[in-house]
């Protein structure tokens, strides 16, 4: 793109707007993070004071690290999130491709069926799900969580991906067909790489509720060895007294892995991925 195409005025305005919203977006995060480095007294005495130097207090973090196996929790969260994400993206993309690429009887109805899942909070099915897991001996395993999150993420993934798959040029898929690519090969080697931005988007949307979910870890896998980070942080939320330093510290730490995942996915949002494909 040419610099002749960007006017200084407009660039300035763009930055002004973005900075404004960035400040709005980050201010509460900033408040959270600075306060995670303060003692309770300091938090409430002056929530906006920087944790430096006299207010600086690592008590939140030391509490977190003392209590429970936080690295283990991180690891569990990571495994659950990444594995679920993998299945959601794989199965979701496959189903979305089938729905958007082929005309077959019941296509729309099946699409609607797959979308039902986003219309009812999955919490309602808790007891039945727990029964399934008990029957399958999966209680207190990460597998149980992965299964639930995979199922939970699929509707949205199918919904969004099928929309994006429709924008992949027919000529391109046809070129693949002529090249003797099977439908599977067309999906995996042509379509998937071209909907990378959409896949990344879906990955991000799917990952956040999984990472932050409290409910299913609490119900399906509350045991110490399989605790997730979100569940682990809950220990500091008491009936009457909440240990805000520790909660803030734990949850501030918990932002980092998702942030890293987000950064990885958002790198897939590349401009002009389909450029040069067709005339």
């Amino acid at each position: 793109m040419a610099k002749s195409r960007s006017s200084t005025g407009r660039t300035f305005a763009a930055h002004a707007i973005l900075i404004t919203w960035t400040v709005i977006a980050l201010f509460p995060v900033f408040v959270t993070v600075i306060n995670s480095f303060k003692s309770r007294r300091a938090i409430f005495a002056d929530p906006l004071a920087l944790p430096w130097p006299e207010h600086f207090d690592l008590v939140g973090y030391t509490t977190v690290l003392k209590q429970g196996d936080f690295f283990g929790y991180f690891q569990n969260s990571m495994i659950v999130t990444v594995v679920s994400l993998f299945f959601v993206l794989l199965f979701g993309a496959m189903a979305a491709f089938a729905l958007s690429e082929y005309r077959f009887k019941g296509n729309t109805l099946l699409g609607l069926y797959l979308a039902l899942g986003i219309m009812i909070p999955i919490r309602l099915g808790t007891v039945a799900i727990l029964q399934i897991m008990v029957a399958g001996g999966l209680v207190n395993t990460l597998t149980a969580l992965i299964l639930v999150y995979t199922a939970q993420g699929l509707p949205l993934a199918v919904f969004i991906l099928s929309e994006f798959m429709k924008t992949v040029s027919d000529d391109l898929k046809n070129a693949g067909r002529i090249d003797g690519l099977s439908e599977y090969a067309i999906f995996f080697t042509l379509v998937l790489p071209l909907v990378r931005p959409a896949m990344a988007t879906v990955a991000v949307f799917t990952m956040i509720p999984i990472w932050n979910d409290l409910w299913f870890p609490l119900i399906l896998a509350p045991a110490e060895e399989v605790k997730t980070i979100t569940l682990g942080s809950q220990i500091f939320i008491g009936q009457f007294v909440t240990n805000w330093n520790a909660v803030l510290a734990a949850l501030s730490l918990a932002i980092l892995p998702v942030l890293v995942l987000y950064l990885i996915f958002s790198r897939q949002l590349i401009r002009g991925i389909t450029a040069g494909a067709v005339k």
Partner: protein
Amino acid sequence: MASKKPVRWHIAVFLAPAVLVYTAIMIIPLFGTLNLSLFNKGPDGVGFVGLGNFATLFGDPRWSASFWNALGNNAWFFLIHMLVQNPIGIALAAILSTPRLRMAAFYRTAIFVPTILSFVIVGFVWKLILSPIWGIAPGLLDIVGLKTLFAPWLGREEYALTTLALISVWQFVGIPMMLIYAALLSIPDEILEAAEMDGITGSSQFWKIKLPLILPSIGIISILTFVGNFNAFDLIYVAQGALAGPDFSTDILGTFLYRTFFGFQLQLGDPYMGSAIAGAMFGIILLGVCVYLFGIQTRLRRYQF
């Protein structure tokens, strides 16, 4: 288009994993639960009551008052998202997709960070910021000389819901932004270049070229917002508790359902009435989704590039 006659097994193969996992872990449990809405505890144990629970929900003035209150609040919650979150998300995405914009990745990440946060933090930090006691919001308003505008928003019936909706907008604006951004990226550069040549630049380029091309994505975010909002629960729950105070002014279908289904404090969970509420919510959302799928989506042309 491939030909029709031979059995196209690949379609089944593509669909099978998703359909199986989804059906087993989601649909069967969920509909097993929704099925409960047709039963209730009678004097002689649990029995089939047909639509009796729904009759209670809509007929009994206490239930129906709560329901309509929650539905009305929910509609307002949704409206704010549609009018504030989505336009802001689209605008931010449009600005971010300006070619050669410096620090775009930073902005994008920054704007998305709130979406990553857990509700516990969001609830805590906004209550802290908006608290009349600890002085952040009043202090900031004081700096710009608007201190008089301050009110304990979360505690006032007339403001609480709007305030929470705006917090939710703050948190989730990253989602429409990401989706629209991805959609904008898939517009070929050449088309935008042609527009540049035609003198269609800046905002008119957005309105006349980009917007029509991303309409399907806007349709998607609208329906996702709709579904998401009518299923919303967590933010209200962490900020105002399950009773959605003050005086139920922030009660939405999600909190109403939670209280009823799982119980709260001394209130015991009532899976039967709870399922009836869930059934009603499901009906509302399904209606919306069908309107979208059959009424709107088919009309939004998708363009292959």
